[in-house]
Structure formats: structure tokens, C-alpha cells
């Protein structure tokens, strides 16, 4: 993090408040990368103050928030609007029931104030390798719906991130909905390690979602945050669970695989070696929690 200083005034920009989706997509089409969408503002406002970004126009979703937020269950999937806040996610009974890992992550992000502002779509669009909402969504096989003037596309969330602060989102596109398939036998869990309990960036986070079939793991996915240029799906580790008996040995094997397939760097929050160790420990804990969890 940069040393703090009182910052120069925020540079000037035009400000647009589109009244509907068509108007929004036209603005994004016209301005492309000169436009920035503001949702909760928790990342964007700081980037503006630090002059890390210099948009010609800021697009405010105030008038179309109704269309872009909220949580519903439709056709065996949970649909979460892109501008749904962490507070709304944390409190939602469907998410609590079918996507515990996401519920746990949402309840730990930032502070009370930040959770009232920050939104899930913007957390993903920001593309941080440490984004806390990403590993739960990857583990839960979420799909993300992107929309532009040209049309709509739906992509698996693990294919969304391409590098540090980089995603497949085009400048004229907006995330509209995140969809999580509802699987009745699937149990999920998320944990992180950070240097204090609150308002902190994760050193490592781990999410797991596994199907539990009479003492064995069915379809299972483990996802790791803050240990690679993007949040990742730990494929080797996930394979170590699928079809295996739920036992300390199985969990140990998956945790060891996770440790071996992550690609952490050393930074102010921890060394690469320490992060690998945390991946191992947190993988064991999250898998155990999910395996014991009665949904």
C-alpha cells in the first residue's frame, strides 16, 4: 500500500446517471475505456483519489440499481444481481442455505460500513487476486453474465480473471448477474487467514464446495485466493476428493495437492512459503468443515 497522504482534489469528470439499461450500454459503447462504472465506490473512489484512473466519465447505477440488485432462486439456481451488497448477501437465507461459503466470505469483508456499500459484481470486476468473493463463487461453480450493446455472454467464473486486476470484461460491458447452481447434496465452506480479524486483505483464502454422498465426496471444487495472479480453481486438489471416502487421509491428500499447485508471491502480507503453508492448513480446515456441515 502506498504511504498515506492527503490527496489532491479528485480530477474532473463527466457524470452520467442512465435511466435504463439501454442508456447505460450506449454510454459504455460510446466511451469505452474512458468510462468507469461506480457501484459501491469502495475501490473506485480510492483509485480516483490516488489518480490511478482518470475516467472522462463516471457512470452511476443509481437509477438502474433495482434491475441490477437482489437475490432470487430460479430454475435450480441462485441469481445474485451484480450490485447486491455484501450485507444483503450475508443476510440472505437462500445464500445461507445453498452457498454457505459465499455467506461466510461476505460477512468477513471490510467493515460494517464497507459491507453496506461494496457490491459483489464490482468486487469481481476489480479483478483483485485477493477478492474475497471470488473463491467461494469458483468453488460453487458460479457463472457470470456480462452484457454489452452487442449482446450477452455467460462465462464460468474461473475463466473471468486473466491476471492481476485484469479480467475478460470488455470496456463496453457490465456484469449483470452471478448465477450459482443449487445442488442439494453440496456443502461449502470458506476461510481466510489475515493479519488481524477485521477490515483486512486476506493473506490466503480458501473455499471448497463438495457433494457429500453417504460418506464419500462427489463432485468437489477447491478454490484459492491471494496465492496466484488470479483467484484459482485448484484442479489437482479437487480431483483428490472426487469419489473418495471422507477420511483424514483423503483430506490430507487434497490439502497437499492444493499446497503444491498454488503459485504465491512474497509481499508485505506474507512470504510465498508461508502462503503455501496457509493453503495447506486452510484447505484441511475448509474441507473438514464442508464434510461435517449439514446444509
Amino acid at each position, binding site marked *: 500500500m502506498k504511504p498515506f497522504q492527503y490527496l489532491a482534489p479528485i480530477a474532473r469528470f463527466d*457524470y452520467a446517471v442512465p435511466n435504463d439499461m439501454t442508456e447505460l450500454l450506449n454510454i459504455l459503447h460510446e466511451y469505452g475505456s474512458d468510462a468507469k462504472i461506480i457501484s459501491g*465506490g469502495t475501490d473506485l473512489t480510492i483509485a480516483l483519489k490516488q489518480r490511478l484512473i482518470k475516467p472522462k*466519465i463516471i457512470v452511476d447505477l443509481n437509477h438502474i440499481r433495482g434491475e441490477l440488485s437482489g437475490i432470487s432462486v430460479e430454475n435450480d439456481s441462485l441469481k445474485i444481481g451484480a450490485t447486491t451488497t455484501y450485507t444483503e448477501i450475508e443476510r440472505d437465507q437462500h445464500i445461507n442455505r445453498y452457498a454457505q461459503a459465499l455467506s461466510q466470505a461476505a460477512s468477513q469483508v471490510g*467493515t460494517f460500513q464497507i459491507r453496506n456499500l461494496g457490491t459483489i459484481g464490482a468486487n469481481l470486476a476489480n479483478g483483485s487476486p485477493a477478492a474475497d468473493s471470488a473463491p467461494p463463487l469458483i468453488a460453487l461453480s458460479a457463472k457470470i453474465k456480462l452484457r454489452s450493446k452487442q449482446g450477452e455472454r455467460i462465462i464460468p467464473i474461473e475463466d473471468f480473471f486473466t491476471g492481476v486486476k485484469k479480467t475478460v470484461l470488455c470496456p463496453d460491458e457490465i456484469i449483470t448477474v452471478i448465477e450459482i447452481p443449487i445442488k442439494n447434496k453440496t456443502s461449502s465452506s470458506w476461510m481466510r487467514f489475515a493479519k488481524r480479524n477485521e477490515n483486512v486483505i486476506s493473506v490466503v483464502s480458501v473455499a471448497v464446495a463438495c457433494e457429500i454422498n453417504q460418506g464419500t465426496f462427489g463432485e468437489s471444487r477447491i478454490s484459492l485466493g491471494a496465492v496466484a495472479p488470479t483467484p484459482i480453481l485448484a484442479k489437482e486438489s479437487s480431483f483428490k476428493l472426487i469419489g473418495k471416502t471422507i477420511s483424514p487421509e483423503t483430506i490430507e491428500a487434497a490439502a497437499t495437492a492444493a499446497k503444491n499447485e498454488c503459485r504465491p508471491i512474497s509481499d508485505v502480507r506474507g512470504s510465498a512459503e508461508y502462503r503455501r503453508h496457509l493453503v495447506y492448513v486452510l484447505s484441511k480446515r475448509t474441507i473438514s468443515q464442508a464434510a461435517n456441515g449439514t446444509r
Partner: protein
Amino acid sequence: MDSNRTISISCTINETLISRKIAPNQTLCDFLHDEIGTTGVKKGCDTGECGACTVLFDGKPVTSCLVLAPQIDGHKITTIEGLGKEKLHPVQEVFIAFDASQCGYCIPGMIMTASAIANENPNPTEEQIKRYLSGNLCRCTGYQQQIEAVKAALIKLARGT
């Protein structure tokens, strides 16, 4: 669509309807402090970490340094000035009774956060109170009096006194 270097907003600030043209390149914190004159809104870190600038946005506590001023169009903002207009809010009364303020800079923000806890959870554990207050840093007190004050305030609010 409204697209310009100034933007018209209408919002309710401390129960007063306000309509004006504002520059969009300012935070809600600066707007409230400098333009509206609600100087109880304090700027601490200006990065959403310290909570001194906390106000209620449609009843929910937010750090006003992370909100752009034009985002409040059509919404309701409450600052410490609007919390206890006629008489002190129960949270303010107990903060005084428990000597929960020392230098006082963090207190308006902390009281705004504390005033919202009852809506979230009228009967929180001490651990939960600490979590609610974790976005309000105080470098004087060590937090003990404030946690005790919040407990007392919740009892007061539950009794309706």
C-alpha cells in the same frame, strides 16, 4: 440522462430536503462537511479505514469518504447533527454517561455506527458489538467504555427510554 460537469441532486439530509447543483468530483464526506456545513462529519484517513466520516445512507452506516457526493441523489442521509435534533439520542446519552469520548474526533462516526446496531441485532454479544464497531478506530480510549456504552444504549433502546 444527466451528463455534465455539474449535476443536479435532490436528497434528504437530516430530514431537510435539499436540491442543488454540485460538482460530481467530490466525496460525500467533503460535500457534507464543506458545502452543507455538517461539520460533525470528520475526515480521518480518507480511504474508508477509520470510520470517522460515518453517516447513515438510507439508515445504514457507510464511510462517506468512499461515496461520491452525486450518489446520494434521491436518498436519505443522516449525520450526527440529525441524530438527536430535539434531545440527545440514547447512544449519545450513554456515551456521555460512560465517558466514552476522549479527544472526540472519532465519536460522531462511532455514534452513527452504534446507532445502527439496534436495527441489525437488538441483542448482540460483546464479540458482535466489537465486530460492528471494528470500522471505527479510536486512538484514545482502548474501546472499553464505548463497548460498555453500546451495551447500555441497547438496553435503553429496548426499553424505549
